[in-house]
């Protein structure tokens, strides 16, 4: 059988720096018809370059210096752009990460789809377009065909891209992180669709992703890239069950799995940083971070060796790993110290509400029509005890960031009562005194914007020390850096000289500089690479035990929140749906929304089983939130008018879980099974 894609010894170099930089080094892979091949790697691993090279769609500075790319037996290297054009679309198609930038904003969806059928008459082409939209399960294809790209939701846009890619029945489909920009409940629906279409059409697929969970659920075989190099390659089961390369082991160990908690399992982070492509280690690229490195690893580059019929690994010690003679895993973080539970309350939030007023037009102002406002946070009550972590999970638009900003006093329009260690907090930050400021700090979402690019790390760290603790000493700055495991010479560096993970460490050090009693963390790891995430989470846990700090952790990732927290709150449209101790979060009864969330997460275990609960439609606009229960428009367990008309009650079950729903907890418990089951790791 001719493979749908065969890449041999492909090397791609970039020529935009002082010298050529290798982005993909002698990579080979093969995809059979009907097979889904996962390509995993962190940023800078070369996975996008590889995908673009297969498309022969590399940027101008990139050059393929050697190798061969054959799609359905036809060699692509050396083809002129004129000869390539008929191949794009008919032989190879790609679904990009950001659908909005790939669709033409000035043309209606129907027009863009029917353009592909030049041979057909206009009305036939239009029918074909509608047919395609039906194929990707768009409920109202005629309406969507008449819409412009910005008028439909992100999930819908991505379905249109999939319809477009499949319209010509390509031999090879390349999916480049197709669901990364989507919310988890939408992602689940789109992934289901892709899976169904793949199964029905037997299209060979190259699935590029940084998310191991998606790959575990999707791929048949997978290739792991690290710093331009193919490090391991094999069937999904082999790689997930018995990884042979230390980097693959590290990747699998560095993400918390759904249902795990820091009390039971310690994350193993890969220490060090991903090498820059200009400065690759000459022998084994992973040697500087490898726990089982030996002399030869730093002297000569290991060859890609066959470890079984369909499996390859680039490591000198894979045989020892397979025989169990060495342990290629990273050392685990020390378990957190047992702390006596202190009943003292760190933060108490009562009926918090955040509104953003929409601007009025001149006409509205003249007519004196009332201002429309978005209720970003609505009637939220929470309590965080001293030394405890409370996690908040929610999709985009759930109001989680607004809530954090309201607590630190950065929004003008917050109402309600917030108490910090028993003292009421003034709503706005300018009314808070030094003492209060020093007890409450926050780590911002985006590490790239968290530090002033014009100040050195030392300058950034010395300000809170001087202002909130009255300390003016370089010694203390160095101690802070040491606390987040950064060398003292970093004090003289500028943010541009740090990696994203290091910037986040500095931002954390700055928040802890004031010795706060409560730290708010807004998506502290979501923009970081997988191998860096674990080290940041471990760092936060360690700092928390050392200082007895309470944490409010906000994330869209329910695995991270469940891992880090003692209590978890689930937010939807600015309201709390459920508040559960983390040990009970993953067991029924669940709030119907939590049930859907847990069912939407791609599990990191190819053998795991998972209930399939899918939500209809998108999140409603917060300008006109649904009446009654805010979730009723999408709820799979909708029970009738009561959900539309009445605000649900807070019910408490005997484990201390609190659920905001009309359905009695006993009924929920009876009807719901365990949403997912996954083996525990040791």
């Amino acid at each position, binding site marked *: 059988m001719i493979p749908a894609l065969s890449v041999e010894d492909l090397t791609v170099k*970039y020529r*935009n*720096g002082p010298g050529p*930089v290798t*982005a993909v080094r002698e990579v080979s892979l093969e995809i059979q018809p009907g097979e889904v091949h996962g390509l995993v790697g962190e*940023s*800078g691993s070369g996975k996008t370059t590889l995908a673009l090279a297969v498309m022969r769609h590399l940027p101008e500075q990139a050059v393929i210096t050697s190798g061969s790319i054959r799609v359905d037996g036809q060699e692509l290297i050396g083809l002129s752009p004129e000869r390539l054009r008929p191949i794009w679309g008919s032989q190879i198609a790609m679904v990009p990460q950001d659908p909005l930038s790939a669709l033409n904003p000035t043309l209606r969806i129907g027009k863009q789809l029917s353009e592909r059928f030049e041979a057909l008459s206009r009305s036939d082409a239009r029918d074909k377009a509608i047919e395609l939209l039906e194929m990707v399960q768009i409920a109202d294809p005629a309406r969507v065909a008449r819409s412009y790209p910005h008028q439909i939701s992100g999930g819908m846009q991505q379905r249109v891209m999939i319809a477009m890619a499949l319209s010509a029945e390509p031999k090879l489909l390349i999916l480049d992180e197709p669901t990364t920009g989507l919310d988890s409940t939408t992602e689940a629906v789109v992934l289901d669709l892709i899976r169904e279409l793949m199964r029905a059409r037997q299209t060979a697929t190259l699935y590029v992703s940084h998310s191991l969970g998606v790959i575990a659920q999707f791929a048949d075989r997978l290739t792991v890239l690290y710093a331009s190099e193919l490090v391991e390659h094999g069937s999904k089961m082999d790689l997930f069950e018995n990884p042979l390369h230390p980097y693959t082991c590290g990747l699998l160990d560095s993400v918390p799995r759904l249902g795990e908690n820091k009390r039971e399992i310690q994350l193993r982070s890969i220490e060090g940083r991903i090498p*820059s*492509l*200009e*400065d690759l280690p000459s022998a084994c690229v992973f040697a500087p971070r490898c726990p089982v490195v030996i002399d030869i690893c730093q002297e000569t580059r290991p060859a890609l060796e066959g470890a079984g019929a369909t499996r390859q690994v680039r490591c000198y010690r894979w045989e020892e790993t397979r025989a169990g003679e060495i342990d290629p895993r990273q050392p685990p973080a020390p378990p957190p110290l047992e702390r006596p539970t202190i009943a003292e309350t760190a933060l108490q939030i009562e009926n918090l509400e955040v509104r953003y007023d929409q601007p009025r037009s001149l006409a509205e102002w003249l007519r004196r029509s009332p201002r429309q406002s978005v209720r970003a946070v609505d009637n939220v009550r929470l309590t965080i005890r001293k030394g405890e972590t409370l996690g908040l999970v929610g999709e985009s638009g759930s109001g989680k960031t607004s809530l954090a900003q309201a607590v*630190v*006093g*950065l929004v003008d329009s917050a109402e309600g009562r917030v108490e910090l260690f028993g003292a009421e907090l003034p709503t706005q*930050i300018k009314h*808070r005194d*030094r003492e209060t*400021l*020093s007890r*409450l*700090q*926050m780590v*911002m*979402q*985006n590490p*790239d*914007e*968290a*530090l*002033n*690019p*014009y*100040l050195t790390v030392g300058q*950034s760290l010395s*300000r*809170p020390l001087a*202002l*909130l603790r009255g300390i003016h000493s370089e010694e203390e700055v160095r101690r802070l850096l040491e606390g987040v495991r950064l060398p003292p010479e970093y004090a003289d*560096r*500028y*943010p*541009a*000289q740090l*990696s994203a993970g290091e910037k986040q460490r500095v*931002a954390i050090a*700055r*928040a802890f500089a*004031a010795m706060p009693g409560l730290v708010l963390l807004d998506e502290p790891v979501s923009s970081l690479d997988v191998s860096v995430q674990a080290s940041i989470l471990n760092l936060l846990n360690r700092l928390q035990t050392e200082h007895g700090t309470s944490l409010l952790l906000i994330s869209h990732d329910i695995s991270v929140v469940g891992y880090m927290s003692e209590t978890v709150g689930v937010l939807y449209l600015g309201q709390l749906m459920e508040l559960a101790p983390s040990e009970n979060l993953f067991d029924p009864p669940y709030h119907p929304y939590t049930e859907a969330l847990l069912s939407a997460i791609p599990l990191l275990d190819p053998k795991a089983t998972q209930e399939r609960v899918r939500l209809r439609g998108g999140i409603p606009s917060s300008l006109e939130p649904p009446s009654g229960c805010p979730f009723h428009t999408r709820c799979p367990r909708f029970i009738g008018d009561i959900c539309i008309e009445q605000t649900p009650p807070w019910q408490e079950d005997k484990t201390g879980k609190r659920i905001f729903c009309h359905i009695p907890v006993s009924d929920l418990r009876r009807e719901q099974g365990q949403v997912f089951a996954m083996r525990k790791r040791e």
Partner: protein
Amino acid sequence: MTKESTTAGVTPARVWRPFTVLTRLFGRPASAAGTSIVLIFLLMALIGPWIAPYGVNEQIPSETRQAPSPDHWFGTDHLGRDVFSRVLFGARDILLLAGLGTFLAVLAGTAIGLLSGYRGGTFDEALMRVFDSLLAIPALLLALLLLGVVGPARNALLIVIVFVYTPIVARVARSVVLSVKSKGFVQAARMRGESETWIIFREILPSAFPTLTVEGALRFSYAIFLIAALGFLGIGVQPPNPNWGLMVAEAREHVFQTPWALWMPALAISVLVIGVNLMADGLRRVLRVPGA
């Protein structure tokens, strides 16, 4: 991936060293040419009066209307004045006026823009509407109106430049504030109780500096143009001042006899303006700070 590695060695401190800025400006042909032109004109303004072969208003009755020659590089005008010497003398005048005016406008505009943008609210809204309406009036017309009020004194030109360009600079400064104000490092500064002055001048201003420098350079070239245009219209400066615009106006009547007396000052204006623009474009590249 490549982005991170190419910027890794550059730090804000290095970007701001004047010598580094200059060497990097000479790294590209276009900005090197622009910078050289500006430097040559600056040199002319500094030492022009000493190297000028003739006096600024020295009339040589026997040598009127001479074409360019080794004696008179740019020829002489209808009164027998050496055009080259007058262009040299004019450089000081125009560079000083335009430079000082732009500098003051950038200073005032930055202060107003930063404060107004950071505080926001009704005051900011009102001020920006006023600036918008000022910007709707063509600069030359505004200058004419102002000169009508202040009178045609030389210092009045300075006031005009400051008045015309302050709103433009303020808008630019404000737009930078709006994009920086919501970033994490500014919020962190607010959370540790920094004063407003510190936040505006230490946290926000550095991010605005590259944009403002480039904007200043562009304003400088427009100011040169404005001064020349006003001189040409005969407002602002009076004869026999060697203002390049005024020289063009005076030579206009004799354009068929002494075309060089018109071309040379006009050439000086355009070469200088092109030079400043090329340099501003170079500055835009050079001052880009990684991560800002």
